[in-house]
């Protein structure tokens, strides 16, 4: 069966520090991968998605970037964190590259920028 992992689970970082969040999927090949951010008490905002290695689409211009160095690995990064980057970050995958399909989410990373 397929599983999705995210780490770290919780992170507290000072303003101006770098960021690296990792997401990996097991049990499937060639998944579509997604990064979402959720502010407290709010809905999800799509940040990036990827349909293959090295292919990244950005939805919202901001202080963050994403990379996909391997088929089942998706990384969210920042060179210098802002206070507004605080939130809950969720990674998701879907098995079907062509058709819209169900997205399955990882456990998330709670990021606090101080």
């Amino acid at each position, binding site marked *: 069966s397929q599983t999705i992992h995210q780490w770290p689970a919780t992170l507290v970082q000072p303003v101006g520090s770098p960021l690296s969040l990792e997401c990996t999927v097991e049990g499937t090949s060639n998944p*579509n991968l*997604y990064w979402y951010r*959720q502010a407290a008490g*709010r*809905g*999800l905002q*799509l940040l990036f*998605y990827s349909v293959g290695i090295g292919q990244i689409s950005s*939805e919202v211009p901001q202080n963050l970037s994403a990379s996909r160095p391997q088929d089942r690995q998706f990384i969210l990064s920042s060179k210098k964190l802002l206070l507004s980057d605080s939130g*809950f970050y*969720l990674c*998701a995958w*879907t098995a079907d590259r062509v*058709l*819209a*399909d*169900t*997205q*399955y*989410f*990882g*456990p*998330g990373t*709670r990021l606090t920028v101080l």
Partner: protein
Amino acid sequence: AQTVTQSQPEMSVQEAETVTLSCTYDTSESNYYLFWYKQPPSRQMILVIRQEAYKQQNATENRFSVNFQKAAKSFSLKISDSQLGDTAMYFCALITGANSKLTFGKGITLSVRP
């Protein structure tokens, strides 16, 4: 552009009773899927139920069922025999075949009272 609207921010239900959560959506696409996700206090996003737009029959999953009104663009979730563990935030979401991007509503907080 596609939109998902959840106009009720909060609802409360007595344990063992039935509750219905409302959702409306808008899309110009003919091929799309609708979802209800549950987000408990752990904040992991869990799939509750999914509906393919081309299917006329309403989806059901144990105590969860939907009322899909395609012409009215309405997609409500009915939870029967509510349990304390159903207490969570519920998000309605839409994905289309055109761009495979999941659009979320703002969510509704459901509290099940003992």
